[in-house]
């Protein structure tokens, strides 16, 4: 008999016993749905991680190594010399090394205000400061010629000097240096977030010329930052570890300071580990569910074979070979589990969409062909593996015994 005809027979026999078939499929449905859900969420997560740590257009992951000199260090020495760079370039997984400075435009400082300390956000600007409500703005000229001047915000002016105009031409001490207040800007909300400040020009409590600050604090850290572009597939944490090890043992400035790494993927790695653990757990539960479902399928197939002994006999008498009978029952069991697999896949997709719609989730679930293929493959395999024994039993039935 042709394959398609046998399949039609199998499908009908499943539909004939709808309730029994659905109950048998339940385990498959649950198992597949669980796997599909966790896979979709896992894929969505890794997409999100890749996207968020490769904000540069090349799509490559970047990580950073920074050199922090000790207090006693000779700051005029170069943090990284040519030999250091060559050593770092030789580490596997690094595509490109870029040297730059780590100086930040912003800093969070504490300031004594009326016997208390207050945390303030300072902006070291090279150009203009934002609009003022009294006095004048800072200009690029202030930076160039090194005017020791500052612009503060209204609330700070009020708490230090009792009013905005009172503050003008008073001094303010920042990093042990006195700056003349030349302007007062509008009040800045008290809860200024440091990380928000990193993302762009945000209002700060104090603005001073950058060069002046650098001159006094001698924090001219030129070239103390290495940005490493990783090759595809290289793991940032692993590369960082290797680079740090090389620099700590062979770096030119190792005796006068410390090397630190800044791994943008570290946080994602932690989350990824948790997600991995969940994935393993769900997979184990799904595996057990699929195994029990498989036994259920086997049981149902044995019952089906027993119920249809006469049918088997009739088919054999009409010319069915043993392999025809075996194929018929095997297809029946596989069709049952594949059907369960499809339902489970659909359920898993819905579940994953539901989970990613939750407000706490920072990313969307992602569906790949791989997930579908896995659901299809696993459900087919369960059907075939657990259907073989009943199908063989059906094909080996003695024709003389059943034709009576």
């Amino acid at each position, binding site marked *: 008999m042709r394959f398609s005809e046998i399949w039609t027979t199998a499908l009908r026999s499943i539909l004939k016993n709808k309730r029994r078939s659905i109950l048998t499929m339940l385990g498959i449905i649950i198992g597949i749905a669980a796997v599909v859900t966790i896979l979709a969420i896992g894929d969505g997560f890794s997409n999100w991680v890749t996207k968020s740590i490769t904000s540069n257009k090349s799509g490559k992951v970047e990580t950073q190594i920074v050199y922090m000199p000790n207090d006693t260090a000779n700051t005029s020495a170069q943090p990284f010399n040519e030999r250091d760079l060559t050593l770092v370039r030789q580490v596997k997984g690094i595509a490109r090394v870029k040297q730059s400075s780590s100086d930040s435009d912003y800093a969070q400082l504490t300031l004594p205000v009326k016997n208390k300390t207050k945390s303030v956000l300072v902006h070291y600007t090279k150009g203009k400061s934002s609009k003022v409500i009294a006095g004048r703005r800072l200009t690029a000229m202030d930076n160039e010629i090194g005017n020791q001047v500052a612009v503060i915000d209204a609330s700070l002016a009020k708490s230090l000097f009792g009013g905005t105009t009172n503050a003008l031409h008073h001094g303010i001490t920042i990093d042990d240096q006195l700056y003349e207040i030349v302007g007062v800007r509008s009040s800045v909300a008290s809860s200024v977030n440091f990380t928000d400040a990193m993302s762009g020009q945000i209002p700060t409590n104090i603005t001073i010329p950058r060069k002046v600050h650098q001159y006094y604090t001698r924090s001219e850290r030129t070239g103390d930052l290495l940005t490493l572009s990783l090759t595809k597939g290289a793991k940032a944490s692993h590369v960082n570890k290797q680079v740090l090890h090389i620099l700590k043992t062979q770096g030119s400035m190792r005796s006068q300071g410390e090397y630190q790494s800044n791994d943008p993927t570290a946080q994602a790695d932690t989350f990824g580990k948790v997600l991995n653990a969940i994935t393993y757990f769900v997979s184990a539960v799904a595996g057990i569910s699929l195994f029990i479902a498989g036994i259920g399928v086997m049981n149902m197939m044995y019952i089906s074979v027993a119920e249809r002994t006469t049918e088997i006999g*009739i*088919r054999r*008498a*009409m010319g*069915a070979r043993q392999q*025809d009978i075996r194929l018929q029952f095997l297809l029946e069991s596989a069709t049952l589990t594949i059907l369960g697999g499809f339902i489970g896949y659909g359920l898993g997709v819905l579940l994953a969409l539901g989970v990613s719609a939750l407000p706490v989730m920072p990313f969307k679930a992602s569906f790949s062909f791989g997930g579908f293929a896995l659901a299809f493959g696993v459900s087919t395999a369960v059907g075939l593996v657990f259907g073989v024994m009943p199908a063989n039993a059906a094909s080996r039935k003695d024709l*003389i015994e059943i034709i009576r």
Partner: protein
Amino acid sequence: MLIELKSVNKYYQNGAQNFHVLRDINLAIDRGEFLSIMGPSGAGKTSLINLIGFIDRQYKGEYLFNGDSYQKASDNTLARIRNRSVGFVFQNFKLIGNNTILENVELPLLYGGMTKRAAKPVVEQALIRVGLSNSSQKIPSELSGGQQQRVAIARALVHQPKFIIADEPTGALDTKTSAEIMQIFRDLNRNEGATIVLVTHDPQVSLYGDRLIKILDGAITADEEVTQHALL
């Protein structure tokens, strides 16, 4: 000769007891014959036709079909020979209850490699021959016993087998229906030259055939022409 049995013996092991089911059977059946095998229950009728119908090959002696022995043939070969050469009609119809009449009757054709599409007109034709047109989409339980047996006959002849084996085809039917069913067999034999081997324990039924074999305790006791045919 279509079928030739030469000193066939069959033993049947049941626990410690050894039954001698068929004793030295010698039988030849030619094409176009309508043979009735009659005997009481347990005489060995079913064993004999199982052997002839390639269902059982555990026997001693020789069974030649068209001059060939299939005693040592593989299961696949036997399945093929059953599919091409034998049509079975059973006492309790043995239709697949979940399937429609069409699906029941097309089975021998499908196992012979035909597609469903190609089989359909052939099946319809066979159903017309047994007087059951327009019922191919029904399921067996919607039909009466006599109609179900007609379906079984259609199934037995749809693939044009070399011979038809009918094992007590009227055993589950009333007298009137029995007569109708037997009439179909006789028409098949007379009009189309079908070879029919009929098993019965009803003397009345055996009168439809041309030749009557009586079997008792596994041995053939009589082999005679039927002279007094049943009334048409």
